[in-house]
């Protein structure tokens, strides 16, 4: 751990390393909602279960759960007092545990589609909660330019 020491241009201070972990948490949740869930979800009229991650090995739903567990662990590590964030994660994990379709193959069924969409919204809400709770508590924000997009 050389953050803040000479010869480490990637992290010039310890705060920058904290910021990188915080960014990882936000990006991880975004990836989960937009890609791991969002790609197979497609639209109500055109779900794309063929785009589910790790479909061939039957791990699509399991990867979603594992990703949520891993990101919850990261959130707890960088800010153990983040009660609202952890509660949001627990809510998302509860919804993920209700899934009994390992490869998301049944997304053409409106019930299944709505279930996954609610999970996606919950993951996005978890990200918003983490940004609102953990960012100010640690005194870090997401990237000034990375968020700007131009």
């Amino acid at each position, binding site marked *: 751990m050389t953050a803040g020491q000479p010869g480490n*241009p*990637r992290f*010039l201070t310890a705060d920058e390393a904290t910021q990188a972990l915080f960014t990882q948490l936000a990006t991880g949740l975004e990836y989960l909602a937009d890609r791991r869930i969002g790609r197979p979800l497609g639209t109500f009229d055109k779900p794309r279960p063929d785009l589910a991650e790790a479909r061939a090995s039957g791990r699509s739903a399991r990867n979603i759960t594992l990703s949520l567990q891993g990101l919850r662990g990261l959130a707890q590590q960088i800010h153990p007092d983040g009660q609202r964030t952890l509660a949001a994660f627990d809510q998302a994990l509860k919804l993920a545990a209700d899934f009994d379709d390992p490869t998301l193959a049944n997304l053409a069924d409106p019930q299944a589609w709505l279930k996954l969409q609610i999970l996606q919204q919950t993951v996005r809400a978890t990200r918003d909660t983490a940004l609102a709770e953990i960012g100010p508590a640690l005194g870090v924000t997401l990237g000034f*330019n990375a968020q*700007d997009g*131009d």
Partner: protein
Amino acid sequence: MQRRAFLASLAAACAPRMTWADVGSPAFLAACKQGEAFFLHALSAAGETLIEVPLPGRGHAAAAHPTRAEAVAFARRPGTFALVLDCATGRVINRLTPPEGQQFNGHGVFSADGNLLMTSEVIAETSAGRIGLWDTRSYTRLTDWPSHGLGPHEIRLLPNGTLAIANGGIQTDPVDRSKLNIATMHPNLTLLSPDGDLIDQIDLPDLRQNSIRHLALAGEAIAFAMQWEGDPAEPVPQLGLWTPGTAPILCEPSPQDAFAMQGYAGSVAATADRVLITSPKGGVAMIFTADGTHKATHRRADLCGAAPLGSDFLLTDGLGALLTADDRSLTPLRSGKTAWDNHLVPLAKTQI
């Protein structure tokens, strides 16, 4: 014209103007945020702040007059104003407003003799690109030309007076900036003669969702940096090199770095034999040789601004650091609480 405005412009035209040499010969301009306030800084080649001028809001890029100590600061797009700043006094000496229904799109350049300012603009309703022309004696609007594409972003002047335009190809909502034509977008790179006539234009038929947005001059070639709007699971190059008269070359990174940029290049800069692109989203700067071979990948969060510094590069980031980059490493020059905005603009070489 009102008499008062006429007298003001007359006074502005007659008053002696300070040159960049009078204000310490800065090498770069960069917009930034300090605390809750926004500024434009003029920096020395060593990265020290020589001048700081307050801005009313967050800046994006700037254009520097080739001789007079004047800079035009552009707001983030779509913007309805750009400010002409006297860098000797810090005063706003002019406020440029595009014609009704048009918006500035983030970038502009001065002609080599400093008599003209060109600005990238769009017609708000359709995103059709325009290049605005301004007389810099008193910053009056002369005319505008079509940019021959949608959503032009960065523009650069070649040494022979040809204007290169990155037409990003994206139609955006005039108010909330949401993208309206991702499925059918069609960016291009356009060359205009000094009279505004279309000279040449290229596109990338197989990569139509790769928005061409930023430009740098790399010897005879134009380096163009792109932002991918297609499927994020597809690895696509973020950098291309085009020598007019030949086919463009696309610069692929090494396979292990294919997704390092996250499909997004924020700035591009070139030295005599290297081209560098940055990705604030990926936290990456990548260096390529002048023939497009991937040479190095350096990692640091929120890197964005980039400009040539001798045979190396100077980079800025949103965490407050200025760093030099060469093939081997990043080296911090200074760091602090100043969050540097997207672009680092080099001043004309004659002034350094």
